């Protein structure tokens, strides 16, 4: 143990030569971070800090009306944080120390959620931002900076955001510094990070590549006069992020008999095309070609597959019921408006597809509790959350089955 700690000190000596860009905080903050004491979870001071960041962003967003920013400040508003605080046993529940986060590249605000959870769990935060700079990201970083400088000097030294090109020496040092390592990314990224060891007592949260499904009750769709609310919600789950989020559905399970399902599909996709028109969603050339490629590759593996498309915006794969390897379907998944559709009479028919890779199941016309129960009782490997259509991108303290607060803190 002592030796490992020495290793961290040793690695820190080379910090001057490391290709690190400090986006929030500085080198000294990083060097001295281990001397910061952990805080209790949901401490009033942390809640104040985050709600201050939230208020600042709300004000800034008044004219911008950016959806991602709005979702972020809404989540971290004081009343919500207070509610969450009351859900946890606040007695002797304290942070583990330093949390190190590898943020995902492409949901522009995701880094801020993971960093804020690190703080709420009572930890200091080191966060590696992806090289892709976004408008939303810059805005949130600015808010953190502003709030620290203005009223929260005690948070200076507790939060460091950095960028660095993949460099094992840096990852080695950061990994040796931390007590919790949180990795968001592809399996490949996680494996690269894991080549750097962490302290024996440190814990790890891997958020690896996932994919998601939706369940539509055909009868309910046929009964619904105006499908546009559903379609807009579905749009937010899918095309809004070009179907790139792990929680965006790629498999749609249609519940009902064959006749109902075929009518419901027709009705739904027709209504959905209108929403795509309404939102002016346009397809990129590369995406169109990739979708065609994946669909054709799928056709060689899935006997009697049908590829259905009007234009290139929506590509649908009608998976025959007889297909024997539903668990393999995820391998043919593709972003940018690409759906694999299965019909089944009962919820249990979708079980073969619910492997570990399946993260979120979003539902329409069926109770989320029923799906949760089905997943639990049949002990499926996948399904970490079940939400209504339109809520797949909502952030939650429970993610991929981990309670982020519990996992990043300890009870005395």
């Amino acid at each position, binding site marked *: 143990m002592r030796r490992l700690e020495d290793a961290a000190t040793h690695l820190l000596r080379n910090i001057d030569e490391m290709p690190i860009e400090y986006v929030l905080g500085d080198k000294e903050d990083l060097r001295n971070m281990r001397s910061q004491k952990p805080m209790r979870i949901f401490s009033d001071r942390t809640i104040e800090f985050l709600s201050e960041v939230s208020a600042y962003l709300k004000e800034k967003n008044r004219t911008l009306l950016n959806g991602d920013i709005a979702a972020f400040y809404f989540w971290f508003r004081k009343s919500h944080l207070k509610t969450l605080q009351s859900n946890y046993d606040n007695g002797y529940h304290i942070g583990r120390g330093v949390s190190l986060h*590898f943020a*995902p*590249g*492409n*949901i*522009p605000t*995701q880094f801020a959620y993971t960093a804020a959870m690190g703080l709420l769990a009572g930890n200091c935060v080191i966060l590696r931002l*992806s*090289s*892709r700079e976004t408008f939303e990201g810059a805005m949130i970083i600015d808010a953190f900076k502003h709030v620290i400088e203005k009223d929260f000097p005690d948070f200076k030294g507790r939060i460091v955001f950095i960028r660095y*090109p*993949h460099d094992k020496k840096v990852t080695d040092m950061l990994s040796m510094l931390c007590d919790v390592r949180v990795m*968001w*990314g*592809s399996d*490949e*990224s996680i494996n*690269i*990070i894991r080549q750097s060891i962490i302290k024996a007592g440190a814990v790890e949260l891997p958020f690896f*590549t996932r994919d998601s499904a939706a369940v539509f009750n055909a009868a309910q769709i046929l009964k619904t006069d105006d499908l546009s609310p559903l379609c807009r919600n579905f749009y937010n789950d899918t095309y809004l*992020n*070009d*179907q*790139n*989020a*792990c929680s*965006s559905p790629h498999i749609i399970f249609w519940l009902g008999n064959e006749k109902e399902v075929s009518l419901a599909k027709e009705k739904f996709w027709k209504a959905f095309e209108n929403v795509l028109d309404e939102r002016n969603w*346009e*397809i*990129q*050339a*590369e*995406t*169109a*070609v*990739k979708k*065609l*490629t994946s*669909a*054709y*590759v*799928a*056709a*060689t593996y899935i*006997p*009697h*597959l*049908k*590829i259905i498309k*009007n*234009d*290139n*915006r929506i590509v649908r794969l009608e998976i025959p019921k007889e297909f024997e390897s539903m668990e393999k379907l995820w391998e043919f998944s593709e*972003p*940018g408006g690409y759906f694999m559709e299965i019909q089944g009479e009962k919820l249990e028919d979708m079980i073969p597809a619910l492997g570990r890779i399946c993260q979120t199941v979003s539902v329409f016309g069926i109770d989320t509790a029923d799906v949760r129960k089905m997943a639990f009782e049949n002990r499926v490997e996948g399904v970490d959350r079940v939400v209504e259509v339109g809520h797949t991108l909502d952030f939650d303290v429970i993610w991929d089955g981990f309670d982020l607060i519990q996992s990043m803190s300890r009870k005395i």
Partner: protein
Amino acid sequence: MISETRAFPFGEDKEAKAAHYTEQMLKLTEYHKKKCDEYRRMLEAAGYDAKKVNHYRDIPFLPVGIFKELRLSSIDDDSNIKTVTSSGTSGQRRSQIILDAETRVQQQQALAAIGADFLGKKRIPMLVIDCPATIEKRDRFSARTSGILGFSIFAKKRVFALNDDMSLNMEALEGFVEKYSEGPVLIFGFTFMVWRYFVQELEKQNRMINLPQASLIHGGGWKKLISEAVSKQEFAERLKEVCGVNRVMDYYGMAEQTGSIFMECEYGHLHCSDYSAVLFRRAKDFSLCEKGEEGLIQVMSTIPKSYPGHSLLTEDIGRMLGEDDCPCGRKGVYFEVIGRAQHAEIRGCSDTFAAEH
């Protein structure tokens, strides 16, 4: 190797082509459907119906990327095949193209006929801007290899300008100049190689050679040069300065359809020969572009029989400049290549830690 070839491979106008090319494409599509099970499944999944084909533009196309995912073969006997791999950037998957003897011979014939129209029928000395190892390594048959071997049919004598470590072989180069500078010669290489290892290297060493009757043919794309901000014009000018080359011709082609070669004429237009067809499609629904409108390039060739590569949708963007009326006198479509389809700005939580590097 120059065997029976068409006299003039740019003789067909729009009408003449439509009729017989459509028939040939229909036949080839049926052939591959029968011979390649994966291809048949793709067409069935897409709901292909031969009866609805009125023109070759109605023939289905495979995206070129499919050859990175699948090994597609239309031959029963695997004994006499060569696999061509595309020169994909490191770390990326390479395409695998199955070529049998017949398809290879036909490719050579097409290339000979097209090339002869630009270089003349006489074989001339050829200077290859590459290293000998590129064609010696039998295990890796790349697009570069097949390019060199393909264009070698025009060569009376072939000399490699680079050593295996990509440095200039000055001895070979000077020998070539001494012997052949009086007459017409062919210089061939991949665009980036010509630039980096020939032009820039000669400039660095402050040396110039003189090949006043040389025609330089280069291909493989401007991708890498665009990132160095080298324009077509600058490329040609600096080439002229270092080696006095008379003519610089770009060509467009790809490992996935080696029989299709599109040469640049004296007016700077890429030409589609009678062996090929080229179409431009809109990203939004793959419908056909108007003349002048930018779209994804689709290439067709009557040659691929050993693998279903007769109709391919590329990831390149280009546009048709005209048809049958290029001042150079060649019939058929002429066009320009604008570049690769842009990488879409991805939003989503698929991380970049691995992808960045």
